[in-house]
Structure formats: structure tokens, C-alpha cells
């Protein structure tokens, strides 16, 4: 049989400068099947093939800076081909500015600060390296969450645009797990950063 219908599952840009689209193949009908991604930009009739199938791994297409424009719709289709025929995915229309999801914040550090009577936790981090927050090209806000060892609940704290956040009244002798995530002003939350741990000294 001709190949099953492929599905474009998602397109994401980590920094408003490049983007990647992923697809899921349909059934292969027992025959060798190849997939190709084609796109057409708004107000142009020219159809291009995916510029880079390798960088983002299997079943994906990576658009480098040179291949990425914003404020322009990309009409994207995946085509599955075997010896018996071709099957097209449903087309997807995307504008890169609406699919921004950054990488998680980096260099997350937690320290116990004790310059008052009671210690507090000081969490600091850096924006993901790829995101150019310096120029203002992307603006990120952050969320910090902490969890006391052996408890199920996370405590979530919005941190705004700050890259440091203090958490007061930590439990004496407790071990905390801390994670940070970020979101562009208009876009999707990143994954949480890998956990950083801190042990609060006994202070009673």
C-alpha cells in the first residue's frame, strides 16, 4: 500500500532566531518509505524542501538563522513516499513568533545566606545561552520551584525578569530541591532546569 499519512506534531523556536518542526510517520505499509518536508512562505509561490534533516534528529527539520524569518507564515507539509505512491500530511501554518519555547535557565545555584538572624535560600541563574536577552530580542520571565526532601508538593514562586530569588524561612536541617524555568514574554514555558540541591544547617 502507499504510505500512511504522516502528522506534523510540533514546531518550536528556542530563541526567535531558528526553529525545528517534527513529524510522526504513518504506517509504512511494509515498504521502504522516505519522508520529505516542504514549505512555502506567505505571499510566495515558491516551494522549498527542508534545508536540514540532520541537526534536530530523526523525523525533524531544522531551520537555521538563514532559513528563518519572523512575522511571515510558513505553510508546511510532510510527504511520505514509497514505490506505490505518496501521502501528504495535513498542512500546518506557523509564524515563528508564536512558537517560541526557550531552553531551561542555566547555571542554577542555591546558597544558604545567613546575614540576618534566620538563614534564607538565595537562588540565582542565567538565561539559556541561546536566548539573546541582552539585546532585548527576547524577554524572559522566570519561575522558581522548591521541594523539601520527602514531600510531594512543589512550592512555586514567580520571579519576574529577575535572575535571583530569595526564599525565606527554610526548614532547619532540611534538604531542598530547586528548579527554575523561563518563558518569553509571548510564548511557552521552558522545561524545568535540572535539580539543584541545598541543605539548610540546623539553626535552632
Amino acid at each position, binding site marked *: 500500500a502507499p504510505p500512511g499519512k504522516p502528522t506534523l506534531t510540533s514546531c518550536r523556536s528556542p530563541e526567535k*532566531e531558528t526553529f525545528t518542526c517534527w513529524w510522526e510517520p504513518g504506517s509504512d505499509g511494509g515498504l521502504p518509505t522516505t519522508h520529505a518536508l516542504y514549505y512555502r512562505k506567505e*505571499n510566495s509561490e515558491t516551494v522549498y524542501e527542508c534545508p536540514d534533516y540532520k541537526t534536530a534528529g530523526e523525523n525533524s527539520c531544522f531551520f537555521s538563522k538563514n532559513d528563518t*524569518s519572523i512575522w511571515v*507564515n510558513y505553510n508546511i507539509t510532510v510527504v511520505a513516499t514509497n514505490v506505490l505512491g505518496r501521502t501528504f500530511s495535513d498542512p500546518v501554518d506557523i509564524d515563528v513568533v508564536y512558537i517560541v519555547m526557550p531552553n531551561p535557565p542555566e547555571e542554577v545555584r542555591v546558597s544558604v545566606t545567613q546575614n540576618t538572624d534566620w538563614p534564607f535560600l538565595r537562588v540565582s541563574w542565567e538565561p539559556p545561552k541561546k536566548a*539573546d*536577552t*541582552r539585546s532585548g530580542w527576547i524577554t524572559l520571565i522566570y519561575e522558581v520551584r522548591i521541594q523539601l526532601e520527602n514531600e510531594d508538593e512543589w512550592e512555586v514562586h514567580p520571579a519576574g525578569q529577575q535572575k535571583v530569588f530569595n526564599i525565606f524561612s527554610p526548614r532547619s536541617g532540611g534538604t531542598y530541591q530547586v528548579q527554575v524555568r523561563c518563558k518569553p514574554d*509571548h510564548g511557552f514555558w521552558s522545561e524545568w532546569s535540572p535539580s539543584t540541591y541545598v541543605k539548610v544547617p540546623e539553626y535552632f
Partner: protein
Amino acid sequence: IGDLLDRASQRSDKMHSLSTQLTQEMDTHFPPYGRMQMQRPAECHTSTLQTPNDKEQALQVSNSDLMSLVRSLLQAWVDPLVILSNSAITLPHPAKSSISSKIQELQEHSKSLADGLDILSGKMGPAAQATSSLPYTGGTDLGQDRVTILNKFGFLLSCLRRDSHKIDSFLKVLRCRAVKLQPELC
């Protein structure tokens, strides 16, 4: 100037969020009616304005020219926002009252943003005060039947969503240039 730009970008941020909510609100009740089958019915009335379309280009544009682009885009939406606002009242859509009040809110933000930028561009010199005229020639009537009206309304909103994102992006680049000495903001 850093302070003024900070306040300006808070407004532009809000404008873009509102226009995003509006497009989502339209689509929740009536998923893009035939908008898929139809070619994009027209180009946005602002599409003749040359704007950067990636970071590399945007960061090469001078402060004055970015300000001029922002003010041109804002001006270009004054008339269409009136049309959207008038049409929203009788829009054949179950969320028309919420849509209508969001459009009014957008108009207010747009107006005070424009006023703020008049002052700001005055401080920046003549090149920042220059604007391009981008008249809306689509007429004040969105159509007769429900599908046409909803399509035209939705299309205008999708243009507004894009343009408000441009405005917001350019202002945030300007803000970071102005606050270079407070790196905690950018």
C-alpha cells in the same frame, strides 16, 4: 528615556496579549471558517511597510528608525481599530461583548502608547518623528453575511496580532539599548 521606554513596552506588551486573546477567542467558538481553504484573503494593509524580519536585521536598525516604524504601525491601526470596535458590537459571535470590551481596552492602550511615543520621539529628533502613511482601504463595512463578517474580522485581528508583536519587539529592543547600564533588566 529608559523609564519612558519601560512604560511604553509595558503597554505594547499588553496590546499584544490582548490581540492574542482576541484571536483565540474568535477561533474557540468558530474555528477559522474556510480561512484554511481560502488563500489569505488579502495582505495586511501594513504589509507595504518594510520592517526587519529577523534579529540580525532588527538589531541593525537605528533607534530613530525603530521608533519611526513603531509609530507608523500604531498610526496605521487607528482607523481599523475604530472599524473593529464598531463591528464588535453587532458581531455574529457568542463572545461579542467580551471581544468588544477587549477591543476598547486595546484602543485605550494604543492611544496612550501613541501619546507617550509622541513625547519620546520628540526627544529623539526629526528622524524618529517621521512616519509612513499606511491607509486602511478595506472600507468600514465588514460584509453582509455571517461567514464573511467573521472572516474579515478574524483576518484584521490576525494582522493586528502580528503588528502589535512587531511594535512590542521593537520597543523592547529600544528599551534594552536605553537601559544598557542596568543589565538586570535585559
